[in-house]
Structures are given as C-alpha cells and as structure tokens.
C-alpha cells in the first residue's frame, strides 16, 4: 500500500497502480477519454492532466497525464490546480473544434461522456470561429449507427474492436487531424461484440441503431437490474423501458461475470419483448381450432381441468427458476419434466455431477481471463456463449502480462505490454468439428467428428498421465501445456449433444488432479436457466413425457416450444391430445396446438432468478409492468392451483421465493436482498431516474389524473422516481448507473470498490453448488468405430450467435443479422457431391433447399447443420442424406461469412 496526497488530502493506493485508476477508485472526479478500465492506458487524449509535485516544498509541480503515471508512495499531486484545469479545458476546446452542433439529434445526448467531460472541464465558450472538418458516414449494419463527425479520436473503438475483441473489419485510417474510424466499405460490423462500441465510444460516433428507432433519453428510461437471457453465461444487463416498450439493453457491470461488455445477442436480442406476436390474452381453443380470447376466467377453468387428470408439467430452461419451481409444485416432482431433451439432460446432469466434485474449480469469467492454458473441447464458444469467448481472448494475453511484469512494464501500459509481447500468447487449444472464430488466436486446433473429439480428449488424458517426449502431436502439446500451466482450464459444452465429450473433459480434469494441478472445469450449457431447471430435478424425461402426452395425458407446458427440443413427429403426436395448457410469451408451433394459451411475462416483465453455467443464481427484476393480461407464469400457475383447489398457491413473488428457497436451495433467498431492503433504512430504490420526465402527460390522453405509482411489494424498488440509488447499496439492486456529473455509463466507477473491481455492495449472485462432494472418478469411455457411407452424413449440430437462440431469433435486429439457412461441408465432401459454396442442397425429408458453405476444418463424412436456422434435429437419427438441388437460388442473409470465419 502507498499513500498519495491529492490536493492536500491523503489517500491510500496500491504502489505501481495506475494513478488515474487510483484517483477514480476513490470516487474523485478526473476527466479522461482514451483510458478504459478493461483496456488500459495509451495516453492519447491528454485529458487526465494533473500536476505532480516533487516534494512538499514544490509549489510549481509538473504537468503530466494521470493515466500514464504509476502510483508511488508519498507522491503529491493536484487535480484541481489551475494549470491542470486549464490544460484539460484546452484539450476539450481542441476536441470541440470539429464537433458538430448535434446534441439535440444525437442518441448519445444526456449520457455522453464527451458532454460530461466538457462540462466537467468547464469549457463553455467557443473561441474557434473557423469551419469544421467533416466525414461521410458508413452503413455499419443493423446494430450500429455511425456518425463520424462526432469523433474525438480517442481510439477506444479500434482498441476495443480489434485488440480486445479480435475484430478485423474496423480500423483507424489517416493521420494527424484526419482520422477516420470505420470499415473499408459499407457493411455490417462482423464481430459479435460490435454493440459494445456504443458503450465504449465516449461520444455519439457509434450508436445503438435499434434503440435509435424508438429513442428515449436516458433520464426517461425505467430500468431494473436484470440478467441476459441470450445464453448461459448470465451477463448482468439493464433492460430499459418507456411507454410500455422495451427500448434497449445496456451492460450492467458485474466484476466476476460480464465486466464491462456484452455480446450482440444479449444487447440486441431482447426486442422480442415488443414483438407483435406476443400473446397478450388468455385464450381457449374452440372446436373449430380458433382461439377465443378475452375470457380469462373460462381459460383458467378449462386449464385447471387438465390438472384433474394428473397433468404432466414440462418446464423450460428459459423460464425462471421460480416459475419452474411453481410448475413442479403444481404437478408434483414425479410428473415434472425439465423440458430439455433426454440427451441434453444427461449431459447437464453429468456436468453438474463433475462440478460438485472435490477439487473442481468452476471459474468465473474473470478467472477465465486469468487462465494461462485453455483447452476448448468440442464447444464453439464464440457462438454458443460469446461473452465467454471474449474472456478466453483476454486469457491468451496472460502471458504478455507476465512478460511485461518481468520487464518492469506496468500492466496498464497497454501499448508497452503489447509491444513487448509481440505475438506471444498463452496456450489455447481448440478441438471442434468446424472452424471457430477463436482459431486465429489458438496455439493449435484439432478437428474431428464427435467421436473423434472424444478420442482426442481421451488421448490428452492419457498424455497427461504419461508424457510422450518430444511428440508434436496435438494431444501431447495440450497435455504438456496444461500440466505446466499456472492456471489451466478445460472448457466443454453441450452443444454437440455428446455426453462422452463432457466425460472426456472431466477425465482430463481428473488427470490434472493426479498431477496436483488445478483442475478448472467450465461446462457451457445451452440456455439461460438450463442449470437451474436441471438442478430442480424433474424425474420425468422429455421423451417419456411426450410419449405419455400422446397417450392422452394432459400437460402444462411452461415457456417451451417443444418443436425446438424434440423431433417434430413425436411433438406432433404429443400435442394431438386436446388437453395441453401452454404458458408462453410469443406465438410458436407449440402454442398453436395448445388447448389453452396463457400469456406469460418475459424476463423484463417479472422478477425471478436464473442459474448460469457456474451454478450462480442471479436475481432479475421486473423492469416494467406488462399490459393486458400478461403476467408472470407463476401467477397463472397459482390461479390454476386455486381453481383446482390445491394448496400450493402464491399471492406474491416473495411467497413463491420463500417456498422455493425452502424446498430447493436456501441460497436463493440470499442472492439479492429481500423486499423490505431500504437505502439507509428509509428509501426504496427508484426504477426511474430522478429526472424522469412527462409524468403528468405520458398518459394524459387516456386519463388526465395521474395514477398512483404502483407499490412493488416484491422488491425493494419503486415504480417511480422516488427513492435513492446511491451506489453503495447491495450490488444486486442497482437499477441504473448515474452519478452527478457522470451521466454516461462511465459513472459505473462510482459503483465499484475500485476501478474494474467488485461493486461497492458486492458482486451479485451466489452459487447453488459448491465443489466439495466425492472425489472425481474417471469416466469409462468406450471407443466407437465410425462407419461411413456415401451420401449419408453424420449430423454435427452447429450454433450461431445470431440465429440459434429461440428467443433472440424473434428480435428484429437479430433477424436482420441472421444468415440464410445453410449446411456446412468440408471441401472433400463438397467435391464428392460436386457442389460448391453458395449452391443448394436438400436434406432428405425437408422441403426447402439450403445453401452450402465450405468449412476448412470440418472432417469428411459429417455435415454441420445450424440450429435455429434449419429445423433441428432434422429427423432425430443423427444421420442425413443430402441431395443436390440444381435450381437453388441463394437467399440474401444478414451475414453469411461469420460462422465459418476463423
């Protein structure tokens, strides 16, 4: 620890720490632009000028940049010295020379870091009377708006996009006063992290395009802490609402999980909440197959008859833990099915078993970033859980930080660290069937069919146990790396639908344990609450549930499109019986065949918990109250229970949670404060900012009398501007980040204990399982021979970040980026079929032909079929025949190249 004197006051700081970070960590105000907590310092913008004094007698001092200064014990600096203030103000004056007169028509206005810094430096008088330099903008696709004139050349965009997120299609062009940040030509930004540019850019060059369509200022948005439903990482987000419409998603800082960044599926995938196909009223299907809406009581009555026949409850990995619990209570554990297909459930259960074993470390994303040797076995993480891939990207820099430390270069000195490391990277090994977007930073990759990948895993396992000297075999290299690493990590997942793969990964962990090596095991489940629903423990498998339904059992289906889970034929049969009650948010094929439809709330419209890949249960809060008859699934289940006359009914979310925690995991009650939590024992936490406008006019055309703000009995939040959001409250209860003078998301540092550290009130969420059970045992993996036949291909399920997720697929910006249906073949097989890329092929049994794409790494005899884009599984057998469609015309698609791009 070191003591630094800032304007005469002594503060504690870490020696060697970045001075700017030290200043901000004490929640003092100092303007900056180019520095970013995740990207370090480059000293480009000259905004964080301070005066450093040699000693107590020094009164003149020396002007320097805080972001390029290391903290030393006893150092004396001044932030408020006139010289420093003038310098900062002058820097802003330069930046403003060419800045357009745009604030009123800029989406950044009101949450613009540039605005904040201009006001903070106090530069309010324009002296420059010359003309402004201008640029033409580019069309950067459906996600990102581009307004280049607003640029202040801080380089944050390219530093993030290229260096941090590994993108290649955004660059800085030009020199000195003529700098352009854009693509070589118009076109969608390829990286799935492009959306972060909106938050990274300190001004309005990159803006949220879908948000801009129905734009509201930050002060007008109502928001609450929530969790992204895009994948199983469980990134923390702020969904924001106004006029009953979900307007946008922004990142909600979590020190251990998502940090400062989200993927684009998370950021742009939530517009399904506003979808025109939302189910808004309870409906009963009449005999002619049409639905009758509007009679909620009748719908409840009809639905509750299903219960009298001993209904099966089919849960869902995309419904909250509490909703699944409510269903389980209603139908009984023996009749409850987790709602994921048998294979997947087996995989997840296997993974959960491994995770609970002694000595197993399940890393958070922050810990992933610290790993120095990573093996990704079978999972295309860039597509199934993109935020994880971003962390893996950072992990390969671990080595460069170690090298920098050795060379006495401060780790925050970004250019120095990168320059010193050159192309040196930590070890990353990827074994997947097809190419992935992480291949470029991988030490080595391996391809293979699923069983071949299992074999590779087994081989690595054997090599760890017993090294083969000087072999440059893939397995040997991996084993060697893992064995010698400081923090090795094994990543696997369920997307290839192979339980052996997970077992193989577990075996590697086991082998590492034998070497007294840390065994970090990261299993990537498919959906937001897959782990949760699996932990809830349904005793009935989905296939047997479907079987029973086709035999005439009634069923309640909770937020689950069964066609997304099981072969269409079996679902068709199951749904034929006329007593299936479906609770869901959007119309889908299952809903179409339900006898009763009940409108469920989306995650933004209710409070609940999701359990992420590390079994971290996280609370998400209702952002706004849904209109019409939409209400959280548990309320419907409660009404059903009431109508049926069972005892389990709940009158509030708090009562569901109470019972849920009691009967499942008691930690659930502790992952977020209870509803009577108050700030300084007095105030609720407001969902609206204190400057929320239009209260007396928003609804005046309907009712001139302003209604009473709804009292929220379930949470510590208010549905109004009343209350306090001081920043030091429990970390799970931050509804938005704002601090006086810090109107942009940069204000998040006021909510952190130290820059990029834990939230002041603690990072939210608790793990439901801790690895302290029995020791991990080896799984016995038999070897299976793959028989190949011409024209018959083994199906490899592929995932694509835009298109493979059930819900984000209904979000219009994601739809605009989703590729046209395609299959992936290797060159060899394509040649054998005499087809080329962009030609058409028909999967037997399917009516539509799909495009062909060639993958460089795909082994022969397999075909990659992307979920969500092509109906999957095509026939449930795992093998398909392909026939060439000579008449195929390629369809336009959001983006074709991304999936196969290494």
């Amino acid at each position, binding site marked *: 620890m070191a003591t630094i004197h800032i304007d005469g006051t002594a503060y504690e700081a870490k020696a060697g720490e970045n001075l700017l970070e030290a200043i901000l960590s004490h929640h003092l105000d100092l303007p900056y632009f180019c520095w970013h907590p995740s990207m370090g310092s480059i000293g480009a913008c000259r905004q964080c000028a301070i005066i450093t004094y040699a000693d107590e007698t020094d009164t003149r001092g020396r002007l320097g940049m805080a972001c390029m200064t290391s903290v030393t014990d006893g150092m004396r600096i001044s932030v408020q010295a006139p010289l420093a203030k003038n310098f900062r103000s002058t820097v802003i004056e330069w930046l403003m020379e060419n800045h357009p007169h745009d604030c*009123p*028509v800029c989406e950044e206005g009101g949450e613009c870091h540039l605005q904040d810094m201009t006001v903070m430096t106090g530069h309010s008088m324009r002296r420059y009377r010359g003309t402004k330099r*201008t640029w033409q903008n580019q069309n950067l696709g459906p996600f990102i708006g581009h307004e280049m*004139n607003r640029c202040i050349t801080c380089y944050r965009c390219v530093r993030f996009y290229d260096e941090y997120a590994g993108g290649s299609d955004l660059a800085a062009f030009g020199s000195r006063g003529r700098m352009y940040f854009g693509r070589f030509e118009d076109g969608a930004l390829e990286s799935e992290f492009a959306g972060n540019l909106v938050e990274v850019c300190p001004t309005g060059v990159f803006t949220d395009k879908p948000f801009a369509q129905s734009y509201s200022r930050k002060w007008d948005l109502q928001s609450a802490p929530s969790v992204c439903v895009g994948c199983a990482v469980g990134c923390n987000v702020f969904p924001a609402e106004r006029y009953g419409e979900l307007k946008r998603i922004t990142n909600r800082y979590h020190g251990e999980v998502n940090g400062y960044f989200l993927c684009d599926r998370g950021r742009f995938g939530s517009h399904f909440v506003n979808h025109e196909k939302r189910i808004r009223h309870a409906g009963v299907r009449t005999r002619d197959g049409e639905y009758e809406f509007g009679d909620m009581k009748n719908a409840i009555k009809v639905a509750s008859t299903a219960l009298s026949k001993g209904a099966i409850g089919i849960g869902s990995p995309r419904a909250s833990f509490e909703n699944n619990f409510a269903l389980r209570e209603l139908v009984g554990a023996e009749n409850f099915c987790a709602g994921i297909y048998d294979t997947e459930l087996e995989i997840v259960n296997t993974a959960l078993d491994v995770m609970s074993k002694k000595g197993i470390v399940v890393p958070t994303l922050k810990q992933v970033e610290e790993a120095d040797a990573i093996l990704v076995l079978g999972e295309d993480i860039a597509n199934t859980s993109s935020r994880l891939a971003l962390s893996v990207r950072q992990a390969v820099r671990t080595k460069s930080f170690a090298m920098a430390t050795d060379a006495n270069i401060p780790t925050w000195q970004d250019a120095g660290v990168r320059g010193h490391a050159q192309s040196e990277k930590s070890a990353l090994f990827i074994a997947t069937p097809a190419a992935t977007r992480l291949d470029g930073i991988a030490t080595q990759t391996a391809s293979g069919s699923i069983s071949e990948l299992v074999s590779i895993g087994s081989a690595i396992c054997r090599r760890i146990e017993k090294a083969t000297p000087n072999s440059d075999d893939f397995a040997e290299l991996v084993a060697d790396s893992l064995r010698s690493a400081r923090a090795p990590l094994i990543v696997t997942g369920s997307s290839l639908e192979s339980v052996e793969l997970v077992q193989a990964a577990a075996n590697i962990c086991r082998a590492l344990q034998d070497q007294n090596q840390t065994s970090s095991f990261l299993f990537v489940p498919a959906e937001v609450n897959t782990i949760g629903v699996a932990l809830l423990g349904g005793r009935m498998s989905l296939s047997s549930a479907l079987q029973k339904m086709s035999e005439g059992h009634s069923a309640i289906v909770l937020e689950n499109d069964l066609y997304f889970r099981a072969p269409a034929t079996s679902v068709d049969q199951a749904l034929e019986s006329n007593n299936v009650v479906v609770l869901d948010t959007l119309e889908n094929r299952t809903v179409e065949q339900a006898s009763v439809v009940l409108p469920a709330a989306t995650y933004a419209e209710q409070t609940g918990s999701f359990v992420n890949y590390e079994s971290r249960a996280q609370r998400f809060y209702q952002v706004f109250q849904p209109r019409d008859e939409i209400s959280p699934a548990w309320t419907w289940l409660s009404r059903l229970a009431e109508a049926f006359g069972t005892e389990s009914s709940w009158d509030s979310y708090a009562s569901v949670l109470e019972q849920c925690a009691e009967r499942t995991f008691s930690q659930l009650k502790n992952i977020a404060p209870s509803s009577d939590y108050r700030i300084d024992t007095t105030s609720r936490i407001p969902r609206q900012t204190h400057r929320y*406008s*239009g209260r007396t006019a928003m609804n005046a055309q309907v009712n001139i009398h302003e209604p009473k703000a709804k009292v929220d009995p379930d949470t510590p939040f208010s549905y109004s501007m009343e209350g306090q959001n001081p920043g030091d409250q429990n970390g799970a209860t931050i509804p938005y980040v704002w601090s006086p003078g810090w109107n942009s998301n940069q204000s998040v540092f006021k909510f952190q204990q130290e820059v990029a550290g834990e939230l002041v009130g603690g990072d939210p969420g608790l793990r439901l399982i801790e690895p302290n059970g029995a020791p991990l045992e080896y799984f016995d993996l038999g070897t299976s021979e793959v028989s190949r036949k011409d024209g018959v291909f083994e199906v490899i399920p592929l995932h694509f970040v835009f298109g493979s997720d059930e819900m984000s697929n209904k979000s219009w910006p994601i739809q605009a980026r989703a590729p046209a249906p395609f299959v992936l073949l290797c060159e060899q097989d394509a040649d054998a079929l005499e087809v080329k890329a962009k030609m058409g092929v028909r999967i037997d049994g399917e009516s539509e032909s799909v495009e062909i794409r060639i993958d460089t790494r795909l082994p022969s005899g397999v075909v990659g079929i992307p979920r969500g884009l092509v109906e999957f599984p095509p026939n449930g057998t795992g093998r398909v025949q392909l026939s060439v469609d000579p008449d195929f015309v390629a369809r336009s698609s959001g983006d074709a190249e991304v999936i196969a791009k290494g």
Partner: protein
Amino acid sequence: MLSQIKTLWTVFVHLFKRNETVQYPEEMPYQAPRYRGRIILTRDPDGEERCVACNLCAVACPVDCIALQKTEKEEDGRWYPEFFRINFSRCIMCGLCEEACPTYAIQLTPDFELCEFDRNNMVYEKEHLLIEGTGKYPDYSFWQVAGKTIAGKDKGEAQKENSPEDVRSLLP
C-alpha cells in the same frame, strides 16, 4: 372632520378619471410579445417541423407536463416527434421549455385563453400545437447548423462546415 372631507374629495375626483377597465373579450388587453401563454410548436423557415424530439423541453418542465416520442420519417434523416403532448392542465407557463429548446421549436405565445370545462380538453397533441409559421424567430434553422445529414443537406453543407474529407485518400 377636515381629513374626512379631504378624503371624500380625493375619491370624488376619480369620478372624472378615465376608468382602467378593459372590456374583455370585446376589447383585448395588450399582451407584451414576451407574454407567456399558450405553447406552440413552430416550423423552420423552410416549412418543416422545427421540433427534433430532443426531449429537453420535457425534462426541463418542472411539472413534467410534456411527453413526446422521437421518430424518423422515411429516409430524410430528420428527427421528429411521433407524438407531442402537453397537458395544459398541469402547465404553469414558466417558459423553461422555450428556454430549453435548442431549435426554437417550442414557444410561448401571448394567448392566455386556455379555459376548458373539461380537464381532458386541456391535453394538446401535436396537431393542436404545431403552427405553420416560425413564431418569434423567423430566421433560425437548426438543421442548417447541425452536422447531421438530412434530405437536401449532405455532410459538409451545414453552416461552417468543410466539404467531407475523401476517405480513400487516407492512409490505412
């Protein structure tokens, strides 16, 4: 006694003074140009709506009686209010909205006749607020100052703007 007579006289002389009454509504009282009455939305000198839906009036309003939603029309690049609603039954005519408006769109006029029997009629929508003219500021056109491209005004064509740089001339 004398003081009473003086008082009587001083009052009596007022019989011969011009009375102060203004016979409203036949006779309209003079309203200073700055008088803060009914709120209007004005148009640019080119006849297009001035309001760019920046929301500053709404947030500056102490009584929160202005609500609006931003939208864009086709591809002309301009921002417009999709709806613009003022609840005059809450308005206190303080003028902070006019002062906050960065485009001179919202203005207060010397029209004070804002009485209704039904409070619901005090809710004015955009079609009630938008006038044809420019109001108090005949010359200002925000879009000629702002840098954003709109139909008929490309980059570099706003006031004090250079024509756009050629991206292709830049070093990679």
